[in-house]
């Protein structure tokens, strides 16, 4: 915590530069002295983990791009060349491919942390919204990245997802043709997906910077969800949270490396080791695991919705539900107006939260099954099934996913008791009705 005061008149090059471009003052302020609540638990590690994962993804991606060829005739083989002939190519590819899964795991936990501790509430609404933008960009990036190796799942996944836009009334088909650059997923599609997949991570970097600027405006929330009251409540970011983040990073890299070195294809689909073939449809087209909950919401709407003046076709309904399931997150700060942030001090929301998490995980499992088969899941090695059709389970879960946001949260804002909150982070005596 060496507190440094920069004197422009001293000779060192750092001072010289800092006087003209205050990079060191900035870093000192934002990374070193930045006062942070002292009670952050390990759930607060996932933001920095996401940032580091993003950097690793960009670095490995850059080296992959040096050897990859985005033409339908060469793409699959160029990836195999990376795996077989490029020095360390197999390592770079496996780090990048598994990195996508790690990134989503981390960001899901990061989002769920925010949901539990009320990090989306005032004054952090914009911070939260920027997070949702990052999430959307990540999904687009991962989707296009998965198309690049041009295996069977790449091709058919791309076909299914781009086809969704054809559900848009009147202009749908035109949009799809425009997206494809032709009349099917083909060479122009692959080439533009490569260009966009290269670009989008840098857009994410931009939004992450805004995300951090917004974060540093009011500082981190904390597990108690109360504002910082006294100086004793905070500690400087460095060394306390730098070392804690480093420790978390160590654990995280162990998990990531375990996948890369010992189960590099576990999270992938075997069909993607068969070159894309537009003439042969795979028996079962499934997206990567991190898209499964949203894929399930898409398929849950298997009925037309008559509005009287207009009937929403099932396909369009599914698309609306899928995009809506993410867009609704933007509205969260206004749907949940309960004055208490942390679920720890919300007797009802505490439980509702977990029912929502269960609905989300259940959606993930239904996304992996066929709609008509009986729903089941594996619990500690045992297959659990209730003989209910998968589509029904998906529909119930989809309902609950939305109802928690659109129904339960507004109601809880009105009826959930406001319990006594701790006086401050360093003085956890409960005081009545502190509000925020």
């Amino acid at each position, binding site marked *: 915590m060496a507190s440094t005061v920069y004197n422009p008149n001293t000779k060192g090059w750092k001072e010289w530069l800092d006087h003209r471009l205050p990079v060191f003052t900035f870093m000192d302020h934002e990374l070193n002295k930045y006062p942070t609540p002292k*009670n952050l638990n390990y759930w607060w590690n996932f933001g920095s983990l996401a940032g580091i994962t993003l950097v690793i993804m960009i670095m490995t991606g850059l080296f992959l791009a040096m050897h990859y060829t985005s033409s339908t005739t060469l793409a699959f083989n160029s990836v195999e060349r990376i795996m077989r002939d490029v020095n360390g190519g197999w390592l770079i590819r496996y780090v990048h491919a598994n990195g996508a899964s790690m990134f989503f795991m981390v960001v899901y936990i990061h989002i769920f942390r925010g949901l539990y501790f009320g990090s989306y509430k005032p004054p952090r609404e914009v911070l939260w919204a920027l997070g949702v933008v990052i999430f959307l960009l990540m999904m687009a990036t991962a989707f296009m990245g998965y198309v690049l190796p041009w295996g069977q799942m790449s091709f058919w996944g791309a076909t299914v997802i781009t086809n969704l836009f054809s559900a848009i009334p009147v202009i749908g088909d035109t949009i799809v043709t425009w997206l494809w650059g032709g009349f099917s997923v083909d060479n122009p599609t692959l080439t533009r997906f490569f260009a966009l997949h290269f670009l989008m991570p840098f857009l994410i970097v931009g939004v992450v910077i805004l995300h951090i600027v917004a974060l540093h405006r009011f500082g981190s929330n904390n597990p108690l969800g109360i504002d910082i009251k006294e100086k004793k409540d905070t*500690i400087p970011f460095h060394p306390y949270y730098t*070392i*804690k983040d480093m420790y978390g990073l160590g654990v995280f890299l162990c*998990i990531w*490396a375990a996948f890369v070195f010992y189960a590099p294809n576990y999270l992938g689909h*075997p069909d993607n080791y*068969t070159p894309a073939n537009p003439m042969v449809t795979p028996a079962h087209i499934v997206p990567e695991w991190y898209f499964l909950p949203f894929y399930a919401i898409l398929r849950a709407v298997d009925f037309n919705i008559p509005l009287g003046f207009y009937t929403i076709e099932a396909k369009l309904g599914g698309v609306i539900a899928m995009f809506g399931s993410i867009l609704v997150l933007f509205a969260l700060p206004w749907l949940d107006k309960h004055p208490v942030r942390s679920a720890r001090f919300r007797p009802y929301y505490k439980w509702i939260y977990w029912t929502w998490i269960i609905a989300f995980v259940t959606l993930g499992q239904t996304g992996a099954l066929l709609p008509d088969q009986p729903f089941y899941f*594996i619990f500690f090695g045992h297959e659990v099934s209730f003989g209910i059709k998968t589509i029904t389970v998906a529909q119930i879960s989809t309902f609950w996913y939305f109802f928690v946001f659109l129904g339960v949260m507004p109601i809880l804002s009105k009826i959930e008791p406001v319990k006594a909150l701790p006086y401050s982070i360093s003085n956890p005596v409960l005081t009545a009705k502190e509000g925020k």
Partner: protein
Amino acid sequence: MKKTIFSLVASALVFASVPVFAGGGAVLEPPQHPWSFEGVTGKFDKQQLQRGFQVYKEVCSTCHALSKIAFRNLSDLGYSEDELKALAGQYKVIDGPNDAGDMFERPARPSDIIPGPFANEKAARAANGGAYPLDLSLIAKARHDGSNYVRALLMGYENAPHDMKMPDGMYYNKYFAGHQIAMPSPFSDGAVDYQDNSPETVQQYATDVAAFLTWAAEPKLETRKALGLRVMTFLLSLTVLLYLYKRKVWKDVKGH
């Protein structure tokens, strides 16, 4: 607390990725073979890979190509440079054009891809009653539990049940999805003459060629696991040190 967090992360990952099979027509799980290349320190058995290559060369290569493998790659199996030159010399490849503008045939070199049996997919289908004997380079990764699956498939030929009518040119195989495969049982006991004392049985051939095809699909497996051991040791020690250092730094922070 930390423990629960990270076991949660891990179990969430496992849960979210439970491989799921399409319903309809029970898929028979292949029997699990104790492969030498399994586990954290797994290594290929070079003797076995050589036998597997022999089976591929003498049996499978009449129908299946192996287009990702060049002769030089076979040095992983323990062949010397001279052996590989001699081996490549047995094959002919088309090269060119030469200075006169003509394509010409020449003996293969170690840097050449092992030539496949057919000029293209159409020719392959024509020779196999319309079915396509796919390229085997990646088969061990292109099927769920690939090594065991390939082994089981080659041992899975049986007489069709009485109530099942087999179309012409189709064979009953209990491990193939749908049970009707266009590939005839490729070998019987004694079909391949091994140089070592390994049993010359269908089971042994199937095991050896499956091991060989696993190497073909993932030639960097040994390098990967060996490097993995070093990286994991490093990361785990680093993490322990970071944890201890974290505890030291945080020792005097009260009420966090």
